[in-house]
């Protein structure tokens, strides 16, 4: 992907995608002049095939698909270092959020689906219980990612230290929480929310 020649034309530049990213993130992509400060400070750039500054450059060139096909957005830790240090006020952390949402919505195959899986389970926990139920989160992640033995030794230790609850009760206001999820879904259906 990295070394493939890039052809730019009205056909290959998906400007609609870039506009969506800008609308979702509330941040301009065009302001970036590629100083590279975001990537220099990024703790995760070593794990990414497109470090943050290149993600913005690809967006400027209308190459959203290249970003979504890679793993960069799923290696962003949301630490906000890039956003904090950008001299041109490009909110890269928000752009990463927007890209993850677009990837999630499209539900396209992701090479890095473990992070997506973990996120999905985390949100499911909120909808089901109101609060995080960490034991279920860990167990469900291991089952669904096929890593049955991951952190197996950690579980009993955490339980014995009182850090992991065996049982969990639902929030009393769980209906209110379900209402939030439902209303957001309805708004999306009607096109009233991005």
């Amino acid at each position, binding site marked *: 992907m990295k070394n493939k020649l890039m052809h730019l034309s009205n056909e290959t530049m998906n400007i609609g995608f870039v506009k969506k990213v800008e609308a979702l993130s509330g941040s301009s992509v065009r302001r970036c002049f590629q100083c590279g400060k975001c990537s220099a400070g990024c703790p995760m750039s070593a794990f990414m095939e497109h470090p943050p500054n290149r993600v913005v450059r690809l967006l400027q060139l209308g190459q959203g698909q290249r970003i979504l096909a890679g793993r960069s957005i799923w290696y962003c830790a949301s630490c906000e270092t890039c956003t904090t240090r950008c001299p041109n006020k490009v909110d890269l952390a928000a752009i990463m*959020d927007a890209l993850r949402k677009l990837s999630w919505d499209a539900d396209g195959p992701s090479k890095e689906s473990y992070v997506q899986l973990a996120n999905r389970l985390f949100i499911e926990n909120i909808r089901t219980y109101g609060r995080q139920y960490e034991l279920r989160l860990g167990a469900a992640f291991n089952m669904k990612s096929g890593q049955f033995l991951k952190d197996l030794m950690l579980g009993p230790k955490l339980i014995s230290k009182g850090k992991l609850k065996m049982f969990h009760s639902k929030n009393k206001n769980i209906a209110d929480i379900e209402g939030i999820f439902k209303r957001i879904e309805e708004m999306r259906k009607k096109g*009233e929310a991005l």
Partner: protein
Amino acid sequence: MTPGKKRLSYSYYPGCSLHASGREYDISTRALFKALNVGLKEVPDWFCCGATPAHNVDELLSLSLCAKNLSLAEEVEGDLAVACAACFSRLKTTQHHLKEDDNKRKQVEVAIDGAAALNKPVKHILEILAREYGLAKLEESVKKPLVGLKVAAYYGCLLTRPPEVPELDDCEDPSIMEDVLRALGAEPVKWSHRMECCGANFTLSRPGVVLKLSNAILESARIAGADCIMVACPLCHGNLDIRQKEIKEAYGAPDSTLFGNIFGSELHGGSAPDQRDVPIFYVTQLAALAMGVASQSLGFESVITDPKPLLRDKQLL
């Protein structure tokens, strides 16, 4: 309390971690506030703020969950005290975005079926200790100064970044944690990794990332001569404390540490890398200890990297 002055009192949003893997943060926060005679009342029926996963995949959901929590907090008097750096960041971010963006606010108000409470001040525990209770008074209240304890103050990501959201301290060179440490009589060390990311919530999906980043933090603290690290985030605590043994196993061989790779063996004087245990404390544990709160009420039994040998060594237990 000086007569005539109203007693400080806060509503309290503990967040999910503080009721589970970070329970000692909750226990010690309550113990500390009691010792300082500051009121703390938990928001009834609060729910998860969504943390990083919610905004990673759906900003509207993330903002709505936080907005609903903020309106629940309205029911309890006093500014909202938050201990978890991630909850603090999410709640403040929500207020910040919704104040700036009418369109977003309207969408959120439809989602939560009510008005968003944007004016409830959200404050981190550090802010309350250093600014509202005040460093001078904090120093006066110390019963057992943490003399001789060298502490690496670890800020991590979300306490200070991006600066316009938490408004807690300078985003590149903060000092609030060191100020609190000095007031408690401890000795903050100068070290390089106080603002670096620990790998955050990748602990579930990509533990390898957490081991690498957290190893660099532990190593940096050891090189600076710190006896321990102080944190204000349950996720940082989890990564540095719960996974410390794994980190040592993964990076323990001579010259395979981050610094070993770069500088060869010079830094370690030609010997194996420093493998000392580094106990990880919550700011409230150290503060409460200095206030003379009994160690049994500080949740030390829940910590994986046992801090008791260090505290005994420094005659603080």
